[in-house]
């Protein structure tokens, strides 16, 4: 997924090969991760797609099924991965992920501790941010979940950047070997305040902690605990509003009532050369209009950030 190896990175020459991970794009809300396999087929409502037809095509290509249905084959990125990964838990999405990485000042070379791993949505983006020389140590107390996450990081080729550990961080704290080594610590736990003292010990001076909690009571409690060893305690909520874009036609009517907006498709009436002039006068013009999508995620969680006190 990451371009560390130039022969793997996307380019104008890079072609899809046997064994590549591709994101099959049907629509913006319907995607799937597929590992390309010479003899494999993909079956969906658009028909049967043979993997062998994909090999040798550039990423980003449109490919067809036996009944001329089509899909796009995209190169995987952490953003696409977040949309296709299997949800073993509630996951973090784009807006929170990007804000967390920016606010925790995660740059190449950083050592990041994360708890819990969950479905590995944030972990994938953390790995991208610390690459090529940093490392993400992520922990989950659920053995099976940790095992699935490891499999995913194999598939996305992030295993060299991510280590998944099984541990009850909330109960036992982070392993002592990480004392004073972490540039940042991310907590997504039901009772983050229990893990905060340990997180503080793992952080380098001036290192940043982030706690993600859906409920304000959790935030309240965490902030109380943070006060003793942390400074710059700030809590945010981040959301995204998406927009729908359409082409509409304005009918410039002859009267004074102004134009009407009509959605496309708009069938043009057949016209003879004779009424060409008349048509010019009341000519319809197309405009592109945008409005916010009617439904959106209204809440994901509160993000509380704090800096480990510099003694």
């Amino acid at each position: 997924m990451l371009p560390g190896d130039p022969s793997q990175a996307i380019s104008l020459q890079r072609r899809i090969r046997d064994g590549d991970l591709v994101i099959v794009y049907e629509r913006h809300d319907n995607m799937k991760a597929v590992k390309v396999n010479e003899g494999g087929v993909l079956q969906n409502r658009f028909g049967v797609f043979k993997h062998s037809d994909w090999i040798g095509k550039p990423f980003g290509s449109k490919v067809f099924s036996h009944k001329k249905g089509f899909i796009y084959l995209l190169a995987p990125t952490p953003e696409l991965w977040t949309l296709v990964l299997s949800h073993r838990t509630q996951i973090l999405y784009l807006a929170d992920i990007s804000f967390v990485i920016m606010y925790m000042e995660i740059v190449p070379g950083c050592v990041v501790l994360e708890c819990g791993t969950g479905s590995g949505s944030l972990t994938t983006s953390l790995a991208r941010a610390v690459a090529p020389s940093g490392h993400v140590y992520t922990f989950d107390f659920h053995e099976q979940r940790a095992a699935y996450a490891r499999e995913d990081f194999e598939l996305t080729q992030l295993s060299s950047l991510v280590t998944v550990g099984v541990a009850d961080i909330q109960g036992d704290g982070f392993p002592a070997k990480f004392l004073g080594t972490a540039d940042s610590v991310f907590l997504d736990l039901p009772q983050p305040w229990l893990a905060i003292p340990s997180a503080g010990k793992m952080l380098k001076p001036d290192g940043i902690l982030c706690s993600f909690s859906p409920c304000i009571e959790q935030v309240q409690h965490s902030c109380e605990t943070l006060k003793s060893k942390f400074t710059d305690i700030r809590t945010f909520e981040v959301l995204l509003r998406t927009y729908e874009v359409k082409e509409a036609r304005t009918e410039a009517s002859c009267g004074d009532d102004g134009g009407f907006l009509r959605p496309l498709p708009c069938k043009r009436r057949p016209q003879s050369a004779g009424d060409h002039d008349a048509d010019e006068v009341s000519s319809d013009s197309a405009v592109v209009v945008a409005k916010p999508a009617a439904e959106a995620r209204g809440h994901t969680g509160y993000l509380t950030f704090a800096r480990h006190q510099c003694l």
Partner: protein
Amino acid sequence: MHFVKWRRVTWEGCSVLLDINDGDRLVFARLSPASTLKIGKKNCSLKPLIGCPFGSLFKVENGKDGLFLLRIFHTEESNNIEEEEDGISEDVSKDNREIVDNNTAQRLTDQDIHAMQRQGATGDEIVEALITHSATFEKKTSFSQAKYRLRKQKKYAPKVLLRRPFARSICEAYFKKYPSRIGFLRLDALSLLLTMANVTAYSDILVVDMVGGLLTGAVAERLGGTGYVCNAYSGATPYPMDIARIFNFSNEICERIVRCCLTDLCPVLNGTCELVNQSKDACNSKTEQKEKLSSCESVSMEQDIVAEDGVPEVIAEKAAPLALKPSKSAKAGEGASDNLINLWKERGFSSLLIAAPELDAWSILQKLLPLLSYSAPFAIYHQYLQPLATCMHHLQIEKLAVGLQISEPWLREYQVLPSRTHPCMQMSAFGGYILSGTRTCTYDAHSH
């Protein structure tokens, strides 16, 4: 392989962000024995900051030779807070019915305070004296007592926090102080741009940065001395990127920031790209002519930018507290070599980022899209919705990209205090719009 190490302690010549009184004032400075910070009407030497870890806190003290900065070592402050919280339940019954605002509550006069300062009283002593001489302090609730104390502390015993200039702190500081210089690019919008464009080590990122170099710097920070950020400009003059110099970039990182003129990058002139040829009419012919007339001298241009690039806001910055003297370190933003340009033409860029409030999104995107690898993501920031909507529509109609989305970020900060948690009273109501998507492969004859 050598990897960049981020230093955690300041050094002479290092660029820092000074946060005065919890964000009331933000000042970028470069540390040297001679550099100073203006506090009130007096100057205060920044020399004591050299060699201190980022995150250190200082207080401004009155000395014989004027003001000086003294490092505070933590824990006392945090204990104070705890005590205050304990007192809360006791004074729920207190309120402000007996407090009359008649300007007689404070018995200490300005002259008294000046006299104390001359006698060498510390800021904290003055704050305590003000409290003792306030007739109403005892009647206040503990909340308003704390507020009073804080207000006086800020005035008589200001605190200076030493911050590492990172994309985050630089963006926040500019957004607060000079938002127009960064095209009103809010922190959450900047972070979305970097994420949506999949910015990561070993990538070659094409950037159109008309936000003062903030975007270029933020990308370079994420590349960590690998790959390249190619800052492209149309016309003869590169866009200013002074903000990129506030980051403490090592030479390895600076070398990875290059500039390139669009005419050198775009296949328009040698006619290899059908897409751009089709839309050549749409190009701004004026710009094209300008481009043809003058060659791109991005290297020699460097020094002139501040002086005469025609963007008044950036010139103003020279006098403003945010200004930094050019550092002696390797210059970021050298012209891209022919080798690099050819490599990019052959392989394509890994992604594209545009933050150009003055350019039309579609006009610029149709020039740059062919330079991207197939399946490469792109993200365009704009303050206005319409140019992005139009651009998105073109991309849809011409089937040049998938996963197209216009997003508007929303960010709200909270005050979190025992029994007093609520969203902050003031918030930024607008963070701009971002159009993002992934380039599709429009090239059918791949079997050749």
